[in-house]
């Protein structure tokens, strides 16, 4: 295990060092007006994080994100299991869901704003709109690709549909479903942040837009850094779990 992990760690460190170097290079090239240097950003971030209003923004983003992700998971699993079970519905609706994935969903945001009004519910709806699709698609594929022998065993044991889902399909599909959750996590976060960039008074996305409005380069760079670090580190952890689940099967 540790032998497999050490080159991974070394690669990650190398990559972070390279990205920091590129950042510093860009800073020298573009100058202070466009991009704060890594050091200045870290200093500003430390000040920002300890500032009083920052907690409120983070709390707001995390709350919208938390609700949106929970909803995405519940809806995604239910719809995914349904479409995986029901061949006809699955065949009919899967291409439509794939098509929704390819749509520039930002253009739908005005409709959501009109439907849900300003505030946390529009943010949540937009997060769900992004996050639910990969969860549905991965769950659907996982349920459909369950090994036939397992399903036959279930039939022999005369399991009901619910028992079949609980004892056979779900355990067999867990690794794939987890991949869906991992992708869904990232997309839900993106959806919530994008929603905050418009018509919002709070949250990290709002802070970004304020940064543009005030031309506060350090603020823009700091918030971007925080978002990237958060998204990347959570996703690395999820990826590790994901790989372990897939190896077990």
């Amino acid at each position, binding site marked *: 295990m540790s032998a497999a992990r050490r080159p991974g760690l070394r690669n990650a460190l190398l990559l972070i060092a390279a990205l920091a170097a590129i950042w510093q290079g860009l800073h020298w090239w573009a100058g202070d007006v466009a991009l704060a240097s890594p050091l200045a950003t870290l200093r500003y971030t430390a000040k920002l994080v300890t500032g009083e209003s920052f907690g409120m923004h983070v709390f707001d983003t995390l709350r919208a994100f938390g609700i949106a992700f929970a909803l995405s998971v519940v809806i995604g699993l239910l719809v995914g299991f349904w479409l995986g079970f029901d061949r006809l519905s699955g*065949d*009919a609706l899967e291409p439509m869901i794939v098509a929704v994935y*390819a749509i520039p969903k930002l253009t739908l945001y005005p409709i959501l704003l009109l439907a849900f009004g300003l505030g946390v519910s529009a943010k949540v709806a937009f997060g769900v709109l992004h996050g639910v699709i990969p969860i549905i698609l991965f769950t659907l594929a996982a349920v459909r690709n369950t090994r036939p022998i397992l399903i036959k065993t279930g039939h022999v044991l005369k399991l009901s549909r619910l028992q079949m889902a609980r004892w056979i399909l779900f355990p067999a599909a867990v690794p794939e479903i987890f991949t869906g959750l991992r992708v869904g996590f990232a997309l839900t976060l993106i959806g919530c942040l994008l929603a905050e960039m418009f018509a919002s008074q709070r949250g990290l996305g709002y802070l970004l837009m304020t940064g543009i409005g005030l031309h506060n380069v350090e603020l823009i760079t700091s918030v971007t850094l925080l978002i990237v670090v958060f998204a990347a580190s959570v996703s690395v952890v999820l990826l590790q779990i994901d790989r372990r689940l897939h190896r077990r099967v």
Partner: protein
Amino acid sequence: MSRSAWYRLLVVAGAIALLEVLCTAGVIDRITMQPPHLIARDLVRMLVSGRMNGAIVKTLSNTLLALVLALVVGIVVGASLHRFRALRDTLDPLFATYYAVPVFAFYPFFIVVFGLGDLPQVLIAFMLGVVAVIVNTLNGLDRVPAVLMKTARIMRLSPADTALRVTLPSAGPYIVTGIKLAVAYAFIGVIGSEFIMSRGGIGYEISYAYTSFDNATMYPLIVLILLASVAINAALSGWERRLLARRGLR
């Protein structure tokens, strides 16, 4: 038409009919949404009058530019990384977490550096698309059967011939998957960033119509984008399926 296609048609028609009924019955008020038949009428009028042509051309040309850049850079980088194992291993964590990072968060920075022209939008669209192309190119090259490469070596094919006659046909379906994603991402990147902040294009027109409560412009534009991206996606998916079927992969 297959049963699933009928099913699909029924779902879409049902949804539109439901919206129509809800809108005309007044459950959804006019300020929120217009009935579908009015949206369709406005869309036709808008296209005939040609007042959105400038915006459409701007969006399409930026998307195309970003797409071409993403494909060229993506395939070249993918093919080079396939050769350099060490570099690829180093970049692997970046690719694995890339789509977890909201690329749009970099848009403000690009605006500050490059100004509010077309370049920031093209760059965002390029950044969204290029990694999908790289990853799928690598995936495709990984799956070229070793026996085919051996055959090419036995036949003493030149590197160019090997690439053209062996590698490309076998990796093709996976590269097409990358192209399909890059097209979707190029659209999302350009229209999304136009929507956030820009001086023209369809995304800008939608956001402008939204802020001025101009539903007669906003809904037809949204429908136009939906139709365009669904049609393009369907065409590319069909191409991908045919290629995979020819390789006996699906």
